[in-house]
Structures are given as C-alpha cells and as structure tokens.
C-alpha cells in the first residue's frame, strides 16, 4: 500500500480511474502521492479504443463520415468538417460558398456549445454539485435543438459531405438560430459574473497547472490550452480554411497559462464565435450546397496523401489520409487534440494537490472518445 521513497518519505500509489467520477470517461491516472501532493502521475488511456483508424481503412471514403461523429462526441460536426476538409484537399474538390458559410455557422455553434459545456464540467470537477453544469447544459441543449432541426440528430450529426454539406438549411432555421444567438450573450454575461466573482473558484483556478509558452509549443499543445499559455496560434487564422478569411474576429490569448487562463479563454472564444456567427448570418449567400462534380457512389480520390486540419473547439483536429486510388483509404490517421493536449498532464500536475489534478484535467477539456479512438 505504501512504499518508502528515496528520501524516506511515505508515499501512496493510487490508481485514479478508470471508473472515477471526474476523469471525464474511462481514463486512468496512476498517481503517486506524498500526503496530498502529487509526486508522480502517469496517464493510462486506451480503455475506449474502438479501432477507429483501422475500421476506416475497410470502409469507403464516405463510409467513415458517421464514425467521425463518435470521435469527440461533444462536438461531432467539427469532426465531420476536419475529415471532409482532408478529403477535399486530397481530391482537390471545390466547396460552394453557401456550403462554406453553413459549415462556419454549425462549426462555430459547435464551439459555443462545447465551451459552454466546459464551463459546467470544470465547476463539477471543483465540487460545485452540478449547479453550473445544469445551466450550461440548458443552453447547450438549445443549440443541440437547432442541430436537430438541421441534421435530424442532436449529436451524431453526420452532416458534412465531400464538397459541401448533406442538406440545406430548413426554412426558418436561420432566423431561429439568429434569434437564439442574440439571447446567448446575456446568459454568458451572467455566467461569467457568477463564476469569476467567486472567491473559491478563483483560488482553485489561479496559479494552478501553469504551462509556459515554450513547453506548450514543444509539447505540441493546440487550441485554447495553447493560447492560454500566450501563443498566438489559431488555425482559422493560420490556414485560413473555409471562409474564415472573409470574417472579422480576434484570437484571444492568455498571459499566465494557468487553469484560470484556460477557463477565461473559453469565455472569450465564445464571444468571438458570436461575432463570427453574426457576420456569417448576414453574409450567407444563396446557391448550391454541394459540389455536383463529386460522386457519392464509387468516390475515388487520386493517388496521393493529404493532411487536412481545422481549429476544433479543443484544438488542432487533423486527418492524415493516404489514397492508393481505390474506394477505400489506404491509411487513415487522426491527430486528436485531446490526446496531444493530455501528454503534458504530468508536467502540469506534479507538485500540486490531488484536488488540483481534477481541475487541471478538466481545464484541458478532453473527451475520451477522441483520446482513445
């Protein structure tokens, strides 16, 4: 149960997980503790491995589109987008303007609902008994209702197609979405006031799990976790995929790189997403939603390989695809943001208290479906 450390201190090895209330799924951490302080932490994952990449090699190109929904099941539509983008790059497919705008709209709404759920989850990790979670989920549910109106499914949308999207916006959907997005900032202001005004929340988040910009870059972190450390890197700006270059938005970044910065970055990013959405609602043109040149059956991209990536809500979501010219991908590889962001977990956690480990893990915002694939 206990074993003597080199320094003669009594340490305790605890296996947190895989069944644990706040590991966000079946994730396990082998933690060595000196009292309440963490001296060593080893993440163990793979409990949810579903052979996603190998399965995709046995399916047609379009056949793995529904599987991508199950990667990061909190935000399936951006997963669709990442895969569609990679295939479009591989096959050199043009996407009509209207489809690009629809992608931006659903993508940014996905980002909003992911970050909203994050605000609730991290409060749950801090032991707030789900009070914030319930309000966050109330708002998330409204966005999911919009998704249901658009795609027929609340979560497993299967919405994107190569060269466009599966179906056009239903009549009146845009007005409903616009009306909802107008009410959203009021909720966010209230949430921010209650959360950032809470002394216990501040003392639990500030100065915990600090990650320097240099280490964050070396560790390959991406997304809000990277930007919280002060690195200005947003693939929407860097790659300028889709119609993002036509939209005006700012990329927030933190200065300290602790859990509080990661927490605040989510709030700031939601505000920017609302800006993007309002512009997209105003600019969306009429026109086709799918490139008619793309075959649905017997789709065969030319021989070659491509890496397509998007700025997902959790970070850089990339798909590396190799085609041998056949109906199935020769190689299908995913760069999941959750997994790469997890790799520096030990560095952030060592020296903190066991309660902080949960908060740090929560601030990285992982989904195990994506980590284990």
């Amino acid at each position: 149960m206990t074993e003597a450390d080199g320094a003669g201190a009594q340490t305790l090895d605890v296996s947190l997980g895989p069944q644990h209330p706040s590991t966000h799924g079946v994730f396990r951490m082998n933690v060595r503790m000196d009292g309440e302080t963490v001296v060593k932490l080893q993440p163990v994952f793979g409990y949810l491995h579903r052979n996603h990449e190998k399965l995709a090699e046995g399916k047609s190109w379009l056949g793995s589109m529904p599987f991508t929904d199950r990667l990061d099941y909190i935000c399936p539509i951006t997963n669709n987008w990442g895969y569609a983008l990679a295939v479009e790059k591989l096959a050199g497919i043009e996407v009509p303007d209207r489809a690009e705008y629809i992608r931006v709209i659903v993508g940014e709404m996905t980002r909003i609902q992911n970050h909203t759920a994050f605000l609730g989850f991290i409060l749950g990790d801090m032991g707030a008994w789900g009070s914030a979670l319930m309000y966050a989920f109330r708002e998330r549910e409204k966005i999911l209702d919009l998704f249901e109106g658009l795609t027929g499914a609340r979560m497993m949308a299967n919405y994107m197609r190569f060269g466009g999207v599966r179906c056009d916006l239903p009549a009146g959907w845009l007005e409903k979405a616009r009306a909802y997005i107008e009410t959203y900032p009021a909720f966010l202001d209230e949430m921010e006031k209650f959360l950032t005004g809470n002394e216990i929340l501040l003392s639990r988040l500030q100065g915990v799990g600090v990650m320097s910009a240099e280490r964050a870059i070396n560790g390959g972190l991406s997304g809000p976790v990277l930007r919280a450390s002060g690195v200005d890197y947003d693939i929407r700006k860097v790659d300028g995929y889709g119609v993002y270059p036509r939209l005006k938005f700012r990329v927030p970044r933190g200065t300290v790189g602790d859990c509080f910065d990661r927490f605040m970055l989510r709030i700031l990013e939601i505000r920017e997403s609302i800006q993007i959405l309002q512009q997209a609602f105003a600019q969306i043109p009429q026109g086709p939603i799918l490139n008619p040149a793309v075959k649905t059956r017997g789709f065969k991209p030319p021989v070659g390989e491509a890496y397509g990536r998007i700025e997902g809500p959790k970070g850089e979501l990339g798909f590396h695809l190799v085609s041998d010219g056949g109906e199935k991908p020769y190689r299908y590889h995913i760069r999941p943001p959750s997994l790469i962001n997890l790799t520096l977990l030990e560095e952030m956690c060592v020296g903190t208290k066991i309660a902080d480990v949960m908060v740090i893990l929560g601030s990285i915002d992982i989904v195990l479906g994506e980590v284990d694939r």
Partner: protein
Amino acid sequence: MNFIDLLKRIPEICKTPETLPLEGKKLILDFVTWLGSLVGIAVPPWVLTLVNILVVIVAIIAVFLIMFALMSVWERKILARAQNRYGPNRVGPWGLFQPVADGIKMLTKEDIVPRNADKVVHFIAPIVMLVPALILPVLLPYGRGMVAIDLSVGILFFFAVGAGSEVAIFLAGWSSRNKYSILGAMRAIAQMISYELPLVMSAVIVALVAGTLSPTGIVEAQGGYQFGFFPNWFVFTPWGFVACVLFYFSALAESNRSPFDLPEGESELVAGHLTEYSGFKYALFFMAEYVGMFAINGLLVTLFLGGYQAPLPFLTFIPSWCWFFIKLAFLAFSLVWVRATMPRFRIDQMMQFAWKFMLPMSFAALFSAAAWHYAGRGLLGWGISAVLVAIPYFALGYFCFTRHHSADNRRYLFSE
C-alpha cells in the same frame, strides 16, 4: 381518577400550545398511573421515572429522525430548484414519501464488506458514528422548560460527545482498506480537528458572557428586548456576530457540508470514507451526519440566535418550541443554499482558512466580548467591541489574505 378525566384534559392541553409538549408528557404519566389503578396496584415511582425517560428519548429520536427524513427530500428539492430541475416528485404528494422509498432501497441493498476489510471495525464504525449524533440533541433546550437533560456543563458535554464522530470517520476509512477511504479519513481528521478549535472558541465566548455552560442558562441570558423591540440575542452584538459567523463556518466543516465536503470530495475521492459502505450501513452514516448537522445548528441557535426566544415581543404568542424549530429550519435551508452555490475548497486552502483566519478571529472576538462586558454592555461597549473585532479583521485581511485572487488582474491579448 378515571379515563374520561384524562380524555377531557386533551382539549385543555391543546388550548395552550406553549406548554403542549410538557403537559402531554404529564398526561402520559397519568395514563400509566391510571393503568396501574386499573389492575389495582399503585405504580411504583421508579416505573414512572423510567416511563418519563422513555417518553423523552422516543420523542427526541422520533422528532430528529422525522426531521432527517424530511430534510433528505427537502434538500434534494431545494438543490434541484437551485439547479434548474424539479427534484424528487414521483413518490407521494410532492415527492414527500421519497425517504420511505429510499429507506426500503437501503434496507434491501446488499451489504458489501470488502474482502480485505477489518470486518469488526467496518461493522462498528456506523454505530460509533450514530450514537454520539443521537446523544447531542438531548442537551438542547427546545422550548421553555423543554430540555431532556439540563446539564450545568451542557456545552462542554456537547463538544466532548460530538468529537466522537471524528473517531468513527477514521474507523470507517481505516477499516475499509481502500485508498480513497483512507485519504478521506485523513482529510476528515485534519479538517475536523482544525475546525473544532474555532468552534469551541466561539462557544467559549458565549459561555464567558452568559456566565454559564448550561444551554438553558445561555438562552435565558438572551431573553428580553432592548428598547422594547430589539432582541437581546448575542448575534446582534459585534463580537457575537463574528463568533456566530465563525461558528457557522466551523459547523459546516464539522458536519462535512459543502464547501467543506473534502472528506467525501466526490470529484476527487469518489466518496471518501463512505466508498466501501453500502446498504443500511451507508444509511446510518447518512442519518448520523444529518442528525449531527441538526444538533450542531441547534447549538448555534441556542448560543447566538436566542434559542427559543421570539425575535419580536408581539410574536411571543407563537410557542417557544416553534421558534426553535423555525430557526433551525432556516439554518438548514441556508446550508443547502451554500451547498448549491459553492465549489469545494482545496485542502491547503481549508487549513489556512482555519488556522490563519478563523482561530485568530475567534481570539479577537473573545477579547472583544470581554471588553463589551466590562464596558457595561451598553452603547459604549458596543462601540469598543466593534473596533476590537474590526481591527483584527482588516489586519488579517491585509497581511494574510490579501485578495491576490482576482479576475481583474489578468490581461488578455487579442490578435486580429
């Protein structure tokens, strides 16, 4: 004496709600005497004493267990409302019979004992937890003349018995042979011992001012009204307010309530010392925690909120025992409210709060109370004692607890 006379007394008793419980007890004793006369013997006095004791025990246990049952559903309801939900509403009207369903579930669940557990200790821990919790309510005065045992050292006895729950939690954590349990038990010991000090200190202040350790005496010392309307409760003095707040926080920590629920710490330690308990043993822990919570808040009512005294003179028509339970219900509501609102402390922050802030403040309140007493308990004393608690408060705030945690000192850069 005949049975009809006894029956006739019932409406008479009901006319004076103030003394209803006491008269009711007398009625039961007379009923026993009548039963004796029925078989033609004079009931010996020791039987009457025994019945007297039994009536009190049954009444206290029944009242507190009913309160526990109601509280368990009430808490879930309030928590649900705070969280934008409905809460239990399936069993009975407004979900009121939920405790019955919970009890049946708990009784029929399998009682799991881990293979490596210390089985004897694992078995006795819930009992060790429940017994002190059930002894505590005996010491509290619920109304005028309504105290089961009027101990002259009641406060001292209360804390002595109440400390037993710490042992029980450690027994539970140790015997379970589970790492979460042992961590939870370690946290519980650290937390409860730390918060025992400010808890006892703030009670000592009241004992100092009231000049007695008897709960009844303390309540009587808070009787009467200043200027004819302002109650003489200790919470309305500067030192009393500070001590009351300290006592409230300590009581939260002692009863392991959020935000001091570190020993259970669901998001970290799964369920702490309760991890390996199931079925009725778990229910016993739950029961003990709630009864202990009522008892310690009952003590708060006794010490600071004037016990069974009415808040305003014209409200004295409501029986004194009602006032006690109204105040207790208000405190219980506030506990749930806090639980629905606050995230949990971290262990080091919790210890710092106890040792660096609450303990010094309780000493300051002690000096302030002494000054209040010797300055004649009037407006002069009020002013002096206010200054005496304000200076340490701001000094501690300035030197130890500067608000270095703030959302305003962060800068966020934006790139176009």
